[in-house]
């Protein structure tokens, strides 16, 4: 089937009015030498029934979180998503709209963005947030570029406890700008602060740490703040899982200049890694705001003096500034930001805290039990949020595949990132005690 609305008769009539004979004639401006003189080698079209049959058959070959218990995290978390979210974002007015170019017919989107910015600011403790970036990895990269523009420095001290893929994306983005990335090694499961201290200097653009970090551990933010404060120009970028901020002190209080990260955990479906959303917030400093990437919504008044919302501070952006823009951001992750806004509103003051606390408590329950087994140790048992690092002498691949036979996705094989070894286990509020105990039972007898 297709989605063409004109009938054959209408097409003929329209061609007549245009003044050409056949439909091919309106393509006459394409020179023959580049015309495709054959059919595309793409399959025949399908009706809806065939399409659904076809795709369902393929989908059924996947193993999914629908019938496997997942302890996978690493930046993509299986939290509870309230049912109302999908109902609300499925309203066509939200999901089929374009970027709010005509503000007067886009107040819905614009107010949502304003609410999103407000709650992201509150959550991180920062003062200004943008309307979203593409994902946690690219947002981290954009934050680093922003810091480099502000500080006019090129050296970036990046914790090895920052998500390996975020580091890789940051390097991809930084390379053309000649950024000099120094990776600060681990001290057990956290950033080696001595090494950090040794590398600090006035030509550092930014320190980048993750909070809680990739291994789930909570960095010594007090200490990092102190180190940073010794150098005026050095910015502190904190990459934070927003769910953890339901429980943890906001990065601002540890001197963060820019807080960024992945917003997926705020109500977004796991979706094999995307679409997610990068969030980014900074301090209220004109120098910072002028360097911010991405769209920003602001409140204003209309011709009658009534409150309304617009996209603002656009002189940072590509459609106005072209090559002088702070970033090339155009399409962002607006619908995911809408999801996260509704999530934050629904969970609210108490709910977000409860999600964080339950995740914390369940993860700690599980970690204790795993640590008590013979063959497994939790490396960061004394310091983690809802994700922890398990080491074992058993071959990790075997451990995970034996768990999979029991319908459990037991965690991330850390060796996939070619740096460290072990299993990264993540626990959200969705996991039941029964599921945790089952995992322990299986690990006990390995």
């Amino acid at each position, binding site marked *: *089937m*297709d989605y063409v609305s004109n009938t054959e008769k209408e*097409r003929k009539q329209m061609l007549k009015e245009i003044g050409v004979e056949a*439909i091919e004639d*309106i*393509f006459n*401006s394409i*020179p023959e030498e*580049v015309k495709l003189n054959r*059919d*595309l080698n*793409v399959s025949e*079209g399908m009706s809806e029934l065939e399409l659904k049959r076809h*795709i369902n058959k*393929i989908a059924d*070959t*996947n193993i999914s979180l629908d019938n496997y218990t997942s302890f996978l995290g690493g930046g*993509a978390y299986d939290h509870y998503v309230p049912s109302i979210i999908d109902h609300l974002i499925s309203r066509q007015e939200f*999901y*089929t709209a374009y*970027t709010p170019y005509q503000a007067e017919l886009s*107040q*819905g*989107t614009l107010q949502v963005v304003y609410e999103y910015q407000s709650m992201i600011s509150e959550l991180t403790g920062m003062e200004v947030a943008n309307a*979203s970036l593409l994902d946690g990895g*690219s947002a981290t990269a954009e934050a680093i*570029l922003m810091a480099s523009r502000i500080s006019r420095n090129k050296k970036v001290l990046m914790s090895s406890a920052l998500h390996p*893929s975020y580091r890789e*994306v940051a390097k991809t983005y930084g*390379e*053309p700008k000649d950024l000099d990335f120094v990776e600060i090694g681990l001290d057990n499961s956290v950033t080696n602060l001595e090494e950090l201290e040794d590398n600090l200097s006035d030509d550092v653009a930014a320190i980048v740490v993750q909070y809680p970090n990739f291994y789930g551990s909570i960095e010594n*933010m007090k200490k990092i703040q102190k180190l940073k404060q010794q150098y005026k120009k050095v910015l502190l970028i904190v990459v934070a899982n927003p769910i953890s901020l339901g429980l*943890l*002190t906001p990065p601002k209080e540890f001197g963060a200049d820019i807080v960024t990260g992945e917003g997926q955990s705020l109500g977004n*479906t796991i*979706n*094999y*890694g*995307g*679409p997610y959303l990068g969030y980014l917030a900074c301090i209220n400093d004109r120098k910072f705001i002028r360097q911010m990437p991405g769209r*920003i919504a602001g409140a204003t008044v209309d*011709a009658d003096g*009534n409150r309304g*919302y*617009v996209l*603002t*501070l656009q*002189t940072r952006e590509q459609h106005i500034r*072209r090559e002088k823009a702070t970033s090339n*951001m155009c*399409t*962002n992750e607006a*619908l995911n930001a809408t999801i996260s806004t509704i999530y934050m*509103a629904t*969970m*609210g003051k*108490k709910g*977000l805290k409860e999600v964080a606390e339950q995740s914390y*408590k369940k993860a700690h329950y599980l970690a204790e039990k795993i640590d008590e087994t013979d063959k497994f140790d939790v490396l960061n048992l004394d310091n983690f949020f809802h994700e922890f690092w398990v080491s074992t002498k058993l071959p990790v691949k075997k451990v995970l595949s034996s768990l999979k036979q029991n319908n459990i996705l037991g965690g991330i094989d850390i060796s996939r990132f070619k740096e460290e070894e072990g299993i990264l286990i993540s626990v959200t*509020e969705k996991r039941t005690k029964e599921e945790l105990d089952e995992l322990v039972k299986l690990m006990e007898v390995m």
Partner: protein
Amino acid sequence: MAEKLIIDYSSQGRKGYSLPSLDVPDINIEDNLESEYLRENLNFPEVSEVDVVRHYTALSELNYGVDSGIYPLGSCTMKYNPKRNEDIARIDHLSQIHPYQSDEDVQGSLRILHELKTDLAEISGMDEMTLQPASGAHGEFTGLLIIRKYFEDKGIEKSKVIVPDSAHGTNPASAVMAGFDIVEIDSNEHGMVDIEKLKEAVDDDVAALMLTNPNTLGIFEKDIKQIADIIHDVGGLLYYDGANLNAVMGYARPGDMDFDVLHLNLHKTFSTPHGGGGPGSGTVGVKEFLKPYLPRPLLVKNGDKYYWDYDRPKSIGKVHAFYGNYGVLIRAYSYIKTLGYKGLKKTTENAVLNANYMKIKLKEDFELPYEENSLHEFVLSGVKQKEKGANTLNIAKRLLDYGQYAPTIYFPLVVKEAMMIEPTETENVGTLNKFIDTLKTISKEIEETPELVKNAPHNTAVRKLDEAKAAREPDLKW
């Protein structure tokens, strides 16, 4: 009509969520965590589920979507977003999968992604694709990094990227992000690349020319082969901004026009919803010789099995933490499978037909700065109307009063008072005529009651908004 902020519905102690009660033995977090790491307060709304549902329902009503009517934003390809693709993207076995599951767990999804990239490569005439970029601009950036890496790998130093003055703002912005300097060249009187000026601008330092074809005026750059030769002759590469692919599917392929790298906007040509500004997908295609530089990991098929190949030493690296906007890719796959090759071609035919029909009708009332044949979109100028007292912005706002969305305005920059109109194929002659009639009515209003148009909009939820104030006194959160 105004809707207050969600925080203004807040009432202490109200709850909109429900969670199972904690089923593991409770612990005191303060025993584990120093108090300075424990958050003291979170000033989030305290609202009920009903509050949330009503508030966001009310906000949605202040928006206009594709299902509300024509959305003729030039360059944006606002076509109908099929509902069945939404169903498919929500199939549990497709959506409930984690990015760190092993490849063997998710063969179904990998098959879909592989078929999708194979189809996209065929449609665009390229040899290999990455699905990682999450937007058009992200695709441009990725593509330009590939070009950069290619030259670096070959030991060739090149610093410049040529961009026509009619190009989209993301083109120069992406090129700068990728470390290049921009050379802008003017269009000629036909709205096309000025070959002579191009020749002048080209030298050994040119890494690439970025072009969309048809260009943002909707005009096909007929000298594309010559342009390609000019660039290739100095060892430069040709980058294709795929935003306008809807104009040529089944009729011409960027690959056959000698483009070396391109991105495709799946959220335009391939009907995935814009979501009020995103998510999108800007998949990047390259010719064979650029394949080594594609982002890691690359999706590979080996016999019957699909896997992610990370072992790509020349890769530019990652541009996304995972594999790109998978949920968007699923929708695009569903779209292509629905249409098939015939449907894709018919899509293009009707997109071009609709645009040409509108152009014929509207040039009676509005100045058409370029008389050249155009394809899926065209650009009018509001200069005549501006003289009579209402400019293009006013016309756009007045359209909103009639319950229709406005075209893209003041872009491309080469046209004064530009109105860039792209109807897409999913509109029929009935909705086109309605829009045409409305624009003609507005043009008449400008002659008769210009103030009416100048002060538009009148019937929208809010009247014209003060953008200057918004920028001067930023109010960015509650």
